[in-house]
């Protein structure tokens, strides 16, 4: 039925089946839409956020998603600036994932802020000293960049490409892509870092506070590095999931191996710096405000296990797997490493945002625990379902995977 739209030379499932698949994905998606409407309509009392936890799942998810979306900018960086040519076979898909990650980040911010209709104030009345302003600016600009990067893919759809103007436009965009990608990389570096700055400039919160280089706290650099380390893993993960659902190989293993290896090295570097940072915080900053490092891990569920899990299980283990050629080429192990790496980044972002707020600062302050409620979960996960839908459609109708034809001859 829709065969005219499907790229030439590839096979896709029957249209009916595709509709069923999209239909299934729509159910949780619609629940998410309801959560959005509830939060917008009845205000944020519909969540478990409160004055002690002004930041919750949403902000943690935002930080995490953007780190995962780092795969887009980093792959683009490697492809267009470092010029690792092999990566052209995955950069399209990395872009699609990036678009959805950033759309999700913006979408979640839209429900997280109390007055979404006044969201434009961040641009109009910008406070240039706020990390959040930097984040907002860079994210919006970078989202535009991602859309521009995604645009040629759409224009290359078989039917659209029949028209002269779109075809030509796509062609020129491709030509300009290195320049655009360079802008994107520049933006990404900054906002990944600024996100690290978001919790770390809060000197009223000694758990997250860090000193640093010029205006940037150390976590600024840690966040950039960790996003670069985990983004490619996320790209690998999503590629493999897509392959599973498509029931065929879409990207050659050597491409994936390059990404995994780079990821491993970066993760290793990140971990070294992270450990140095944690130790120096523990021996100098924390005691300087009158609290031993242990006191920040005294409230259950935020005990020492948090640090061990984050750095050890979700950091060192995937790092070892990704660095060892043999382990890396063992597919289940690679998937495990990617999973652990991505979970690690999420945990890190949760700790930096939510645990930061959980630790009582005043001695007479009570510890309260927080967990997200259904509305927060549904609205956050909504982006997962929406992304699945967008990826499904993109995969079906757009030439995302250049190696697909070669790997799956009809």
């Amino acid at each position, binding site marked *: 039925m829709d065969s005219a739209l499907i790229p030439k030379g590839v096979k896709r499932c029957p249209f009916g089946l595709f509709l069923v698949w999209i239909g299934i994905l729509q159910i949780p998606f619609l629940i998410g839409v309801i959560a959005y409407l509830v939060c917008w309509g009845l205000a944020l009392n519909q969540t478990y956020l409160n004055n002690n936890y002004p930041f919750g799942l949403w902000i943690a998810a935002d930080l995490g998603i953007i780190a995962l979306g780092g795969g887009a900018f980093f792959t683009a960086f490697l492809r267009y600036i470092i010029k690792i040519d092999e990566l052209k076979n995955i950069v399209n898909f990395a872009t699609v994932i990036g678009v959805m990650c950033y759309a999700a980040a913006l979408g979640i911010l839209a429900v997280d802020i109390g007055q979404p209709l006044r969201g434009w104030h961040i641009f109009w009345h910008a406070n240039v000293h706020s990390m959040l302003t930097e984040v907002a600016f860079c994210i919006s600009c970078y989202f535009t960049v991602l859309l521009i990067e995604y645009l040629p893919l759409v224009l290359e759809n078989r039917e659209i490409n029949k028209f*002269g103007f779109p075809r030509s436009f796509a062609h020129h965009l491709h030509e*300009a892509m290195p320049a655009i990608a360079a802008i994107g990389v520049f933006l990404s570096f900054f906002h990944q870092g600024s996100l690290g700055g978001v919790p770390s400039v809060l000197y009223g919160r000694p758990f997250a506070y860090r000193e640093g280089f010029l205006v940037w706290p150390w976590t600024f650099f840690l966040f950039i590095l960790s996003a670069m380390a985990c983004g490619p893993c996320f790209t690998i993960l999503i590629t493999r999931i897509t392959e599973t659902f498509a029931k065929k190989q879409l990207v050659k293993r050597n491409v994936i191996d390059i990404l995994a290896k780079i990821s491993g090295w970066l993760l290793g570097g990140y971990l070294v710096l992270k450990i140095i940072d944690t130790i120096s915080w523990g021996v100098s900053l924390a005691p300087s405000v009158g609290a031993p490092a242990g006191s920040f891990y005294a409230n259950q569920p935020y005990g020492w296990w948090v640090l061990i899990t984050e750095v050890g299980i979700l950091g060192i283990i995937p790092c070892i797997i990704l660095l060892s050629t043999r382990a890396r080429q063992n597919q289940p192990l690679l998937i495990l490493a990617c999973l652990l790496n991505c979970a690690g980044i999420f945990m890190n972002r949760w700790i930096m945002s939510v645990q930061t707020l959980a630790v009582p600062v005043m001695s007479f302050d009570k510890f309260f625990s927080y967990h997200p409620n259904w509305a927060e979960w549904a609205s956050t996960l909504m982006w997962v379902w929406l992304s699945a839908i967008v990826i499904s459609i993109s995969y079906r109708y757009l030439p995302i995977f250049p190696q697909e034809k070669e790997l799956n001859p009809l």
Partner: protein
Amino acid sequence: MFPFIFDWVSDASHFVFMGTLYAVMGLLVIALHYCGIRAFFDWLCKKGQHEH
């Protein structure tokens, strides 16, 4: 934020920060227009070729 907004302060931070933003936005707009215009001319030429 524009220089005519109440909150504007003419200091280094504002110049650097807002300057960068406008530069980035400008570059993107220029790049898009450049591609668009080139495509438009391509299209015009092709149209011309067809008519010939």
